[in-house]
Every structure is written in structure tokens, then in C-alpha cells.
């Protein structure tokens, strides 16, 4: 995979209509061009060579396969691991084929053929592709059949009919929510007394006067509230700030003391 000069490809990548057309956006990451997977690419190459699955011209196919992967890389398309695994397998088969055959071995090609396992996999894959096509046709037909419209006795749709998958999905969401809350909690608890005093000072400096109650209401939990309360006591004791209550039961204000007076 070292040479960088443009290669001649025996098929036109941009204009070739392969049989595999996948519209699923969600699988883009694992799709290589039009090929859903390495087996699809192999089948395409074999068909292109008009070769037989039971007698794959492994050397040619391997070369084509590797070219395709190089092309992908040159186009900056991430080559999925599945394609690389297959590339390694092809190279391995190719090298096995190059080994001279043991002349003394029994004349049983079926067992010996290093391509057999691959051929079996390709056949199996083809079968399931045919099965997928059958399912596609069935669901198309099925969509021509309609169930009755809703009637009074149908339960209302607020309720969901649950499966095990719903259970685990919901449980994961609950755990995620709980984790988020705990993290928030931890974040909040990290507010030290010094930090609280600093914040309070800044507020009074900026606003001249603040309502004690609304300051306390900004706290997220009991612990923060306690810190805030101590901060107020501290600030009143040491700084030029005083607590003011204009009338009984009125709002208590924290006010900056005028230094000039």
C-alpha cells in the first residue's frame, strides 16, 4: 500500500451501480461506499470477474479488493475494521494457495482448498441477502392490509406496552438522570465558605444593597444555605456591611456602610 500514483480501477467507482443500495444514514460509519460490508464487496468483485464462488480466482480478487480499500483511503473514507480483517484473510488464503501441494496427499481437493471456508461464508451471506429481500417483499404486501380504525373500547394511548428493551432503556435513563443530579450536587457542595464570602462581597459591592431572603433562596441545598448563613455573619462582623430591617417583619437588607460618614 505504498505507491501513491493513480491506479487503474477495473470498475468505475463513481458510476457503477452495485446491487447494494443502502439508504440508512445511521450505518454510514460502517459502510464503505455502496458496499454494506466486506462480503458484499467480495461478491461484487467476484461477479464482476464473472467468476464462480466455488472457484474464486483468489489472486485477482485479492488485488482488486486491496485496490478498492486503497481507493477508499485516498478518498479519505475511513475504512472499517471489518474490511481490513477480510483483507488479511484474503492475503492469507492467497499465500496458502501459492504453497506447492503435497504430491503424496490424497486427491481430495474439497478438504484441502483454502478457499472453501470463504466460499461457504459467501454462500451463507447470499442466502440471507435473499431472505432479506423476501422480508422486504412481504412487508410491502403487508402494508396493503389495514387494521380497523380506533373504536371506543380501545385503551387510550397514554399507556405504553412495554418490552424488556423498554425496561433496560428506561432504567438506563433513570440512572443517567440520577448521576447528573449527583454530579450537580457535588459541584454545588464544593462552594467553600471563602468562596461564599467572596461572592457575597461582590454582590453587595455591585448592588449596594441586597435582600437577605432572596440571597438565601438562591442556595441549592441545605448545606449551601448553612454556608451562606455563616458567610453573612462573617461579613457583617468583619466588613463594612450592616444588616438593616426597616420595619418589623420587613425584608432584611444587607447594605454597604458609607465610609465617608
Amino acid at each position, binding site marked *: 500500500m505504498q505507491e501513491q500514483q493513480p491506479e487503474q480501477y477495473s470498475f468505475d467507482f463513481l458510476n457503477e451501480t452495485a446491487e447494494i443500495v443502502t439508504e440508512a444514514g445511521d450505518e454510514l460509519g460502517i459502510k464503505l461506499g455502496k458496499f454494506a460490508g466486506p462480503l458484499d464487496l467480495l461478491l461484487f468483485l467476484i461477479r464482476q470477474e464473472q467468476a464462480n464462488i466455488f472457484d474464486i480466482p483468489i489472486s485477482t480478487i485479492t488485488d482488486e479488493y486491496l485496490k478498492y480499500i486503497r481507493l477508499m483511503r485516498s478518498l479519505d473514507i475511513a475504512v472499517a475494521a471489518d474490511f481490513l480483517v477480510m483483507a488479511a484473510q484474503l492475503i492469507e488464503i492467497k499465500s496458502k494457495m501459492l504453497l506447492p501441494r503435497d504430491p503424496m496427499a490424497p486427491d481430495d481437493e474439497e478438504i484441502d482448498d483454502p478457499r472453501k471456508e470463504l466460499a461457504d461464508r459467501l454462500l451463507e451471506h447470499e442466502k440471507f441477502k435473499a431472505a432479506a429481500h423476501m422480508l422486504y417483499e412481504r412487508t410491502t404486501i403487508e402494508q396493503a392490509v389495514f387494521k*380497523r*380504525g380506533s373504536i371506543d373500547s380501545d385503551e387510550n394511548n397514554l399507556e405504553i406496552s*412495554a418490552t*424488556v428493551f423498554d425496561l433496560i432503556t428506561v432504567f*438506563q435513563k*433513570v440512572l443517567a438522570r440520577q448521576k447528573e443530579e449527583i454530579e450537580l450536587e457535588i459541584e454545588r457542595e464544593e462552594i467553600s465558605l471563602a468562596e461564599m464570602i467572596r461572592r457575597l462581597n461582590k454582590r453587595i459591592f455591585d448592588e449596594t444593597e441586597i435582600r437577605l431572603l432572596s440571597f438565601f433562596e438562591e442556595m441549592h441545598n441545605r448545606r449551601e444555605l448553612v454556608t451562606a448563613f455563616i458567610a453573612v455573619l462573617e461579613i457583617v462582623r468583619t466588613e463594612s456591611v450592616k444588616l438593616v430591617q426597616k420595619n418589623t417583619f420587613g425584608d432584611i437588607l444587607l447594605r454597604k456602610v458609607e465610609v465617608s460618614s
Partner: protein
Amino acid sequence: MTEIDKDVESDDVAEAPARSVGELVAVVEALMFVADEPITVRALSEITGEDKDSVLAALEALTEEYKNRESGLQIREIGGGWQLATRTELHETIRQYLKTKPSAKLSLAALETLAVIAYKQPVTIPEILEIRGVQSASAIKTLLEKRLIITKGHKEAAGRPMQYGTSKDFLVQFGLKDLGDLPSIEDFQDLVNQ
């Protein structure tokens, strides 16, 4: 491959199709069946492209037919439209069926609570509150009523709170052999995180 798409465009009704009376009756029957509410003669006429008199005749023929063969269903003219419904005499049996119909249908709150109980059992109400962050009392009542959960004795802790776990019905309804059959978080990690 699919020829289904075709019909989407043709919203206006074409030239009156050469349709036999029997065919009109069949179409009217199917349309009443899929409609969510009583369907008017006018609507039927527009869709089928047949005049109102023919539609009305088809509806009347169908009504007679259902009556004559003593079907479990009947055609009713109601609220300015026509409707397919069950025959009044059978309501007792139908009510009985609807009542006993097993249902795994749950509200989201109940489903969440059930999930927590299934995965954390045995678990107490305060523990569920801790995990869900909200009160679960009515969800627990629902789940007990639906017999999806059962009590599992008191926890040996302060206040001896009641513990809950899933029932045998839970396994049956969710198609599980035993609790070990429940997928673990790890099983779905790869799927869900994508």
C-alpha cells in the same frame, strides 16, 4: 418494486370507475372499517367517485346483509355518518373480554418504577425515591394491582421499611425464564451508546 406510492398523487377523483355493485359494497365496508369515526355518505361518494344514491344503496344493502347473516357486527347510521360496530346483544361478552385482557401497558412513571425494582430488587420505597428522584407511591400501587411486583418482607434497617421485588407474572408478561434472563446494562452498552 412498490407500486403503492402511485396513489398518493391522485387526490382528485378520476372518471367514475367501472365498478360493480358488489365491488362498491366491498369498498364501502372496508372504508367504514378503517375509519376512526362514522363516515358520511358524502365522503364515501367522494372517495369512490360514485354518486350518493349508489353509496346509500350500497350502505343499505350492507346493513341488510349483516342483519341477515346474524353477524356479530352491525352497520349503524349515527351522528350523520355510518359505522361498523359490534351488535348490542354481545356487549356483555365483549365487556368481559376487555376486562380480563392481560395488559402490560404502563405509564412512563410506572415503567420507570418497575425498571428500578426489577434491577435493584429487593428495594424499598425510599431507595426507589433516591434513584428516581421523584415519589413513586402511585406507580407502586399500580404495579401491585397489576401484580407485576410483590412485597418481599421488611428490610432490617431503621423503620423496617417494606421491600419490593418483581413477581412471577412479571416474568410471564415480559417473556423471561427467570431474572437472570434480564439483559444487563453491559449487554446494551454498545447498542445504546451509539
